[in-house]
């Protein structure tokens, strides 16, 4: 018997009968069925990757096309806006802008100046209205202070006694004068050779933008009657240099004790 590694199936039975036929399975479990399924899955996997790649490529192309379109749209929008802006410019050029600017500036400056416009007569009227009989003013100085943008009033005068000066200061510290004078400083209190007391009143005075007709001093006289302290003794007032009557007639008055009479 020749040697072979391939075992030979004996075609005969041990007893010499013909071998029984081996039944062939209708379908093989392993073999061809498994390999064909795997092949189908492989085909399907490749087509999915390809599909995704194609979709990505298509999206990229679409985006590129979209960007071209968007760029064109933006350019046309910008051109339209440029044209609109040029139209605005041409329409603005027809306006008398320089004249309008000048007039506007002039009105602004006039408004500001009128708002700050001072009247010396307002200061005169306040001083006239508030003056006490026994006090005589000898010096008047009204000065604009550019730092404070306000006016300062300085009044130099004489009074027969300190009480009259205190009374004058009290009067100025009452309504309605406090509307226009908010802070009073008394300086230079010194008796002179005639026996009177010299003094200086310094105060900021709010006269900007006011007209003499526009100030209300109606409460002043009444306030003075109601609240001035008694003046002891009798004294004749000297002529104030700021008469209230509008004439140069000296204003003389006699204070007999209790109150100073209102001048208005």
């Amino acid at each position: 018997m020749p040697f072979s590694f391939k075992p030979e199936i004996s075609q005969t039975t041990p007893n010499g009968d013909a071998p029984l036929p081996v039944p062939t399975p209708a379908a093989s479990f392993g073999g061809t069925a498994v390999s064909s399924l795997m092949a189908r899955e492989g085909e399907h996997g490749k087509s999915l990757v390809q599909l995704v790649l194609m979709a990505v490529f298509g999206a990229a192309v679409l985006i590129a096309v979209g960007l071209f379109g968007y760029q064109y749209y933006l350019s046309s929008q910008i051109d339209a806006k440029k044209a609109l802006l040029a139209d605005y410019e041409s329409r603005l050029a027809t306006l008398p802008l320089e004249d309008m600017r000048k007039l506007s500036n002039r009105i602004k400056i006039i408004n500001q100046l009128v708002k700050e416009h001072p009247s010396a007569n307002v200061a005169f009227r306040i001083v006239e209205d508030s003056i006490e009989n026994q006090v005589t003013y000898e010096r008047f100085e009204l000065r604009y202070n550019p730092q404070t943008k306000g006016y300062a009033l300085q009044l130099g005068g004489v009074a027969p006694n300190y009480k009259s000066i205190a009374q004058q200061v009290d009067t100025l510290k009452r309504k309605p004068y406090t509307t226009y004078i908010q802070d009073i400083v008394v300086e230079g209190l010194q008796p002179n050779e005639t026996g009177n007391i010299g003094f200086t009143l310094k105060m900021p005075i709010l006269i900007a933008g006011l007209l003499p007709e526009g100030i209300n001093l109606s409460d002043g006289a009444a306030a003075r009657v109601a609240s001035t302290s008694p003046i002891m003794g009798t004294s004749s007032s000297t002529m104030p240099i700021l008469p209230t009557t509008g004439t140069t007639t000296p204003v003389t008055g006699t204070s007999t004790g209790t109150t100073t009479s209102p001048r208005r």
Partner: protein
Amino acid sequence: MSKNLLNLLLIVGTFAVYYLLIGPLYKGVGGVWQPTESVQSLRELKSQYDETLNQADNLFTQAETLRSQYSRVTDEQKAKMKVMVPDSIDKVRLLSEVYNISVEAGIPFNELAYSDGPSTTNGRGSAGISFTVKTTYPQFKVLMDTFEKSLRLFSIQTVNFAAPERESDPTSYQVKLETYFIK
């Protein structure tokens, strides 16, 4: 064409589209091709134009409002405003004007002087006028009233006076005024 080659081409094509078209188009920077204006810069430009147009629109509305206001101001009013605050100050005319005020008030000046004002502030210049008058208090008030009601705007800088030695003497009043012009 094999499937792998097609896939490779698709990948390469996608990258090529991105680097050669999308990137340069959007950012304006590309190795091979650069568009004149990128989408990004165009968008910025458009937003700037939008903002400018908004401002221009507001400006135009304001200008229209101003024009309607301007057209309501009559020539007479404009002329008066020019007297109130002129474009410049003619020294001689100003002195003449102030002198006329004193004549109108019936109080002649003892001294009259002109001085240039301080440097310009807020678009306006100024000039100073100082004068001395000897008169009575009521007449001085009339003079000041005339200045205060003058069409040309005068602002008081200082007013000084003191009682005279003798009651019969007139009081001497020193006044310094400031008048303005547009620079």
